[in-house]
């Protein structure tokens, strides 16, 4: 067996950060190597070096035993290395075909773009690897899972045989994850080799052939998936034992903090995606909203937080009507929102951390006196929160874009938790976070709950829903199928509800079978 790829002694420094420290990595031909590590461990940086986006300060890269000098993504592509980024790099207003050909446009008669040729090639690749996608669809109309396929097709179109996937599963539904792993298996069968990065330990043990763990920019070690357990992997990553089970007391729910009555909401494309939803959240409880992504959860949250108008129905916050009120009004009523799309809503990436830490309260004391921003207060606030929430950053002056994905999330959580709130709306709060951070954020959510805050938790991770919720509402096609007491919920009955089937119905049907 040969090694298709070897990294030796890779070191990379950013101002104030040693992102990679003499990292050695080996990828065997036709195998899947899983790269694990905390948020900010240096995984993305390492892959960006391999892909020619960053230049390493030290170290060598060998492809099939040959030392190579990779200066740019073009060099990487020329060596057969392709990358799917943590945050996709697609142009939303272009079609799949146009996105795939971007940068390697074939022409007809040397002048005209040859769309047909590319579309044909895309179909070939689709068939070959089971990556179904319509070459003429616009990216903005595609669900995330399909967008990701486009990214993979882009890489295959450029004839890569070493694929790097940076947290490919973070944004996918469990079904999409299964689909992805089938695709990866097909790729391996056709002779490709894959490095993939993830924070989901179970996936690693199922799919990987080799596991390598990074911590603080250094290799901690490699382990055979057969010998690995989630506990072992977690402690390798974080450097201490991680409690993978959330410890919590039974909830002591108080009166209603949020009451939603027969709510109808249209999404940005004017389709009715929330169809008559009613529920309530009490003080001191966590109501989990489970469901396959795209069943109206996003729009529900946007309506609750004032980002989308309410078509009909009512929303009450401790008795005050807040439907169709501005985000500012809702915010000032003590609603905290951890948004699902952290880079779109949650952060201004080109602003320093300290500005992001007061994004929602910049106009109030103590951050402002009249119209004048109080720089000292703002920066001290950020210093405190960065320490308290263990945000890994060289300082508070760097832009939010310089943080690793997980640490960006911590900035949002820190900001939202640091103001007085009566309702917390958390959408996919631990997406892309490492086990240590998940443990931390879960504990923080439970702590908020125990302080009497009502929590609405929207997550497509059933594990997360089950771990945190006191009651669980399942959404399907814009409606709530059922609200279960967490004690009676399990993956099976939730799974059926998420597919639009009432468990009682299904058992009845089974019984009727001869």
């Amino acid at each position: 067996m040969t090694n298709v790829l070897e990294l030796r002694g890779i070191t990379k420094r950013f101002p104030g950060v040693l992102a990679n420290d003499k990292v050695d990595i080996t990828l065997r031909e036709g195998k899947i190597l899983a790269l694990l590590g905390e948020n900010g461990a240096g995984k993305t940086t390492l892959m960006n070096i391999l892909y020619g986006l960053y230049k390493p300060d030290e170290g060598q890269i060998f492809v099939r035993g040959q030392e190579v000098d990779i200066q740019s993504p073009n060099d990487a592509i020329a060596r057969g290395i392709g990358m799917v980024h943590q945050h996709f790099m697609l142009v939303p207003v272009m079609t799949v075909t146009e996105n795939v050909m971007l940068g390697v446009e074939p022409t007809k008669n040397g002048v005209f773009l040859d769309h047909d040729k590319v579309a044909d090639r895309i179909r070939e690749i689709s068939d070959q690897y089971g990556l179904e996608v319509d070459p003429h669809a616009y990216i903005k109309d595609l669900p995330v899972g399909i967008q990701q396929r486009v990214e993979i097709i882009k890489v295959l179109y450029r004839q890569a045989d070493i694929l790097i996937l940076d947290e490919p599963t973070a944004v996918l539904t469990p079904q999409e994850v299964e689909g992805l792993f089938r695709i990866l298996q097909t790729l391996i069968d056709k002779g490709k080799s894959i490095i993939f990065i993830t924070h989901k330990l179970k996936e690693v043990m199922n799919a990987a052939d080799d596991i390598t763990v990074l911590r603080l920019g250094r290799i901690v070690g490699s382990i055979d998936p057969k010998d690995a357990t989630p506990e072992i992997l977690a402690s390798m990553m974080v450097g201490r034992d991680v409690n993978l089970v959330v410890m919590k007391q039974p909830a002591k729910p108080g009166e209603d903090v949020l009451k939603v009555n027969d709510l109808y909401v249209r999404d940005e494309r004017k389709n009715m995606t929330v169809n008559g939803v009613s529920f309530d959240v009490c003080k001191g409880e966590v109501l989990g909203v489970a469901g396959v992504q795209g069943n109206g959860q996003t729009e529900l949250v946007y309506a609750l937080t004032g980002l989308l108008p309410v078509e009909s129905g009512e929303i009450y916050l401790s008795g005050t009507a807040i439907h169709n009120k501005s985000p500012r009004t809702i915010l000032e009523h003590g609603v905290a929102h951890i948004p699902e799309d952290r880079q779109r809503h949650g952060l201004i990436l080109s602003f320093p951390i300290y500005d992001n830490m007061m994004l929602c309260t910049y106009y109030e004391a103590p951050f402002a006196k009249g119209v004048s921003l109080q720089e000292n207060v703002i920066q001290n606030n950020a210093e405190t929160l960065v320490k308290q929430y263990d945000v890994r950053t060289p300082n508070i002056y760097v832009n939010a874009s310089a943080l690793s994905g997980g640490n960006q999330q911590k900035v949002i959580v820190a900001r939202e938790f640091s103001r007085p709130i009566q309702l917390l709306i958390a959408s996919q709060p631990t997406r892309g976070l490492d086990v240590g951070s998940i443990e931390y954020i879960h504990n923080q959510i439970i702590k908020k709950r125990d302080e009497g805050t009502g929590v609405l938790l929207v997550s497509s991770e059933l594990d997360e829903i089950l771990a945190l919720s006191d009651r669980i509402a399942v959404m399907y096609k814009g409606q709530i199928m059922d609200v279960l007491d967490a004690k009676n919920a399990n993956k099976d009955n939730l799974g059926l509800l998420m597919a639009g089937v009432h468990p009682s119905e299904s058992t009845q049907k089974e019984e009727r079978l001869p």
Partner: protein
Amino acid sequence: MTQTATVKATKPKGIGGGTLGQALLVPALAVLSGLIIGAIFILAIGENVLTAYGALFRGSFGSLPALIEGIRVYFSTGENQALVRALYPFTESLVTATPYILTGLSVAVGFRCGLFNIGAEGQFFIGALCSAFVGYSIRGLPAFIHLPLAILGGALGGAVWGMIPGYLKARFGAHEVVNTIMMNWIAFRLSDWLLNGPMQASGFRPVTPNIQPTAELPRFFADPLRFNWGFVLALVMAYIVYWFLFKTTLGFEIRSVGANPDAARYAGMNIVKNFVFVMALAGGLAGMAGSAQVLGVDHWVGQGFAAGYGFDAIALALVGKSHPFGVVLAALLFGFLRSGATEMQSMAGIPIDIISIIQGLVIIFIAAPAIIRWIYRIPTIKTEETVLTRGWGS
């Protein structure tokens, strides 16, 4: 502790996070490269580069021997003619830079909020007309009331002119580029009518009457030096805009809306209100540029008054990276090049268009810094990658 905490936090200084030196390196090299390539053009038309650039330098800064001579004559005989002549080029450059600073600020403020104000030219014109009107029509006011009133009139006129496209965008989603261009044309035609009718001075020329001396921005020296308080006004405005953008809650909102409108909305900011406000502010700044030009330099308004200041402003804002101080530096650069060019043409016979070429090159180099970094092998300080779509959610 983490590996990251070991480094002591130091606060980055200057524009855009790097040190001031880093921030100025590329623009300085861009100017240098522009001059070098300009030299090739001068050679190509068969002229002497040293003569040309010598004239350019004398035209924009003046010459040291002439200055020393002027001072000597002044102190020995009390005769100031020579001194005035020696100071003329330098002060004239500052006079040219003044409207550039203010219109540049106008476009820069728009950029900060994600708005493209192509209407500075029309706002400049309207501001000048309003100031001229206040300046000549009101009589008998003391200067300390009349002058501020005239400036205010210009600023308000420009603000209204900017606010209209801002409102159209906020209310109907009409794109500000189209609307500001439209407003330019309305301003030009409106001024044609005003200058040939209601606002025409007695006589046949389409010009306004001269403003009252009480509305003039005082000059620092006697004629022919036109250098006046307008320049100081422009610098003060640059500082105020800087303070406003970076030190106030309103400026924070504007920058947030410009940098990420979705996040701004999430944070409870009112996007469309900011659009209207910023366009009014931008218009007001461009209008004030018109004021400064009428009240300080020309004292009347005629056709073709704006002379492209509002359009050059777009390039200025770009070169100045939409930072008020950057805009001031860029405006000074343009002011010196422009006023030196006249001298270069008359003294060395080099066509004034060479300066347009140099300006164009400087703009290209600054707008595409990769060229400069590549030519001078400056390592890229990797900032952020362009995110075209975000993978999270839809």
